[in-house]
């Protein structure tokens, strides 16, 4: 086919196109808003949002809460709680932002019915992990009202001025919450949050595929380094959980350590795990174990309870097992609900928080998601007897006293978090 030679033209075109692109770039630059962080009182926390910090620049001061360092967060000027006695917003769309499968859809429907007088609609959006959620919330592109978070993001939520302090008068159901969660270390005087569910991190497996009693091993975590199970097992797709578990396995107790030697040893152990047992990395153990795709996986306590409803036909759910340290000295954590500042329906959001703390609602949700709410009306000792949890999964019950001896996954200073991320990246790049 006769066609003119293209090269000289295309070069000119390229140049022209680049020339065109330049104004576009400046336009982009103009659009790029530096999001100033309104820190709490005092000067130490101005995050110095300047772009010259460099990837490993010294971070601004980030106060980090822990059981030994309970924090009462400041309330930024202009972010006072809503007034008392307001009516919920009518004809509103309440936007929830959460993990997938982490809230019963029936509960959402019930809430809409309960507030039918106000013609309320609920929209449920999902994220894959907290960093993604935080990025989207910060961008402000969608006015989410309520989100489900973990305390290892608490400081950033407050410093970023992303959440709204609560007006307690709208949330009388807090009275049913375990005492320690009415004044939690991560949010003293529950200024911003109400608890959602509590969980441990342990090991889940199918007894018919793995006949061994994992919990009877001297060190059950060793199962992830056992080449016998190569190709059958998985660890959670979560850097903190896997690094934390590895530290515990090696006899450590500080799962939030910044000590380079401990972290280095954990990294080496994780790489050794890769070559010995070739684990998959996934959070879908709650379906993969019941279906037999995995025989065993590191998982959260709620996973095996909810996994009962994913059993294939002909397999008895009683083959599911869960182990976490029976003395509570393992990874023990909780998630909370909070009202986002960018939301359009703060009053309705308060009502939703209160609704979720109602014992009937909470129980209904628990029976679907499998994660236990810290409510007085749900006594851990009687959960098996009352039929909420079957005998074979008794180890998945979370006891209140474990929050005193267990190891919470805390927020990390940014430079330490970077270390964890680097280890995780090396692990996930494969050996």
């Amino acid at each position, binding site marked *: 086919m006769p066609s003119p*030679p293209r090269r000289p033209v295309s070069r000119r075109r390229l140049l022209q196109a680049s020339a065109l*692109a330049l104004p576009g770039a400046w336009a*982009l*630059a103009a659009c790029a808003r530096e999001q100033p962080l309104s820190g709490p009182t005092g000067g130490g926390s101005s995050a110095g949002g300047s772009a010259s910090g*460099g990837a490993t620049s010294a971070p601004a001061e980030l106060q980090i809460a822990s059981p030994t360092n309970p924090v009462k967060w400041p309330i930024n000027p202009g972010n006072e709680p809503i007034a008392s006695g307001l009516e919920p917003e009518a004809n509103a769309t309440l936007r929830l932002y959460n993990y997938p499968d982490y809230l019963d859809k029936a509960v959402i429907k019930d809430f809409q019915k309960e507030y039918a007088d106000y013609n309320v609609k609920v929209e449920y959006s999902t994220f894959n992990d907290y960093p993604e959620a*935080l990025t989207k919330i910060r961008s402000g592109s969608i006015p989410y009202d309520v989100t489900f978070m973990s305390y290892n993001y608490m400081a950033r939520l407050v410093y970023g001025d992303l959440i709204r302090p609560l007006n307690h008068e709208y949330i009388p159901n807090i009275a049913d919450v375990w005492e320690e969660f009415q004044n939690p270390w991560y949010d003293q005087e529950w200024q911003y949050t109400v608890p959602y569910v509590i969980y441990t991190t342990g090991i889940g497996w199918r007894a018919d595929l793995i006949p061994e009693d994992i919990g009877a091993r001297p060190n059950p975590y060793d199962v992830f380094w056992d080449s016998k199970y190569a190709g059958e097992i998985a660890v959670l797709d979560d850097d903190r959980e896997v690094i934390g578990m590895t530290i515990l396995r090696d006899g450590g107790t500080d799962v939030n350590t910044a000590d380079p030697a401990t972290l280095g040893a954990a990294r080496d152990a994780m790489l050794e795990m890769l070559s010995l047992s070739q684990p998959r990395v996934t959070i879908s153990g709650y379906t993969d174990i019941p279906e037999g795709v995995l025989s065993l996986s590191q998982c959260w306590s709620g996973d095996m309870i909810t996994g009962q409803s994913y059993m*294939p036909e002909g397999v008895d759910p009683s083959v599911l097992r869960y182990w976490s340290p029976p003395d509570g000295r393992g990874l023990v954590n909780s998630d909370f609900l909070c009202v986002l500042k960018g939301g359009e329906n703060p009053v309705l959001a308060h009502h939703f928080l209160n609704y979720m703390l109602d014992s009937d609602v909470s129980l209904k949700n628990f029976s679907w998601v499998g994660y236990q709410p810290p409510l007085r009306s749900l006594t851990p000792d009687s959960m098996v007897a009352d039929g909420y949890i079957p005998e074979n999964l008794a180890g998945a019950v979370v006891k209140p006293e474990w929050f005193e001896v267990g190891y919470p996954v805390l927020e990390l200073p940014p430079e330490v978090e970077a270390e964890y991320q680097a280890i995780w990246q090396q692990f996930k*790049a494969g050996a």
Partner: protein
Amino acid sequence: MVWIALFFLIPLYVVFCVAFGTVDPIFRSPVPIWNPLEWQFTQVEVVWDRLFGPDNFYLPAVLRTLLYVAIAVVACLIIAFPVAYFTARYAGNYRGLVLALLVAPFFISYMMRMLAWINLLQPDGLVNTIITLGGVVPLDINWLSGNPYVVVMGLIYGYVPYMLLPLFAALDRISPSLIEAARDLGASGFDLFRRVILPMSLPGIVAGTLLISLPMMGDYFTSDLLSKSPNTAMIGNLINLSIVAPGQAGQAGTLLILVLLVLLIPMVLYTRSNARAEVRS
């Protein structure tokens, strides 16, 4: 031109600004630097170290990617070549129809097809049912346990039509009289293939190879869906992981630029040889 600027140059510029930008000290989200004069190259150093430094843990994934892609390309070629050849030569007036039918399954999105494979390859899935003759032969194969063969199979299955189409286009252009002439002059079947068909289909082979190896280099969800094991992680997975991990978008950008630079070489060579061929014709 506007199209190039809008969909290629500006996005690419943004990638550069992120890769050579900084990170928010608290949220560890990327802070792009829009002025090229202020660009910083810390992330490039980090990525370079991880590729070629003492702690070069990116390197195995890069080599693995090259290996997977090479195997998948060769396999695609072996599968697609005879199919394209016989369609071009013998399908007659039904060529269009046969080709459409061959490509039809691939109108379904890549993701859906991989999800279908998950179903087929499950322990009690169709593949195992067939291999074990319905459970008679006691074979217990867990295909989804992070198996590199399954990942390569996924790549082959996912990209084979993109090899098929350019091959067909090239083979279709070979005049039947050329083949007859070769036969008349005493060429054996193998000679015919080696001295006539293969050289004449070379542009199609090169185009197909480029067309599938470029997206394969950046593919991450085949490994994500069919394996989920770090031991089958590809460059695409490294980039994806860097994007979702806080504070590492710059590294993702740098990796992306590196992949782009490497892939640019065959692309440029290909366009140049094409342009030359067109000038000649």
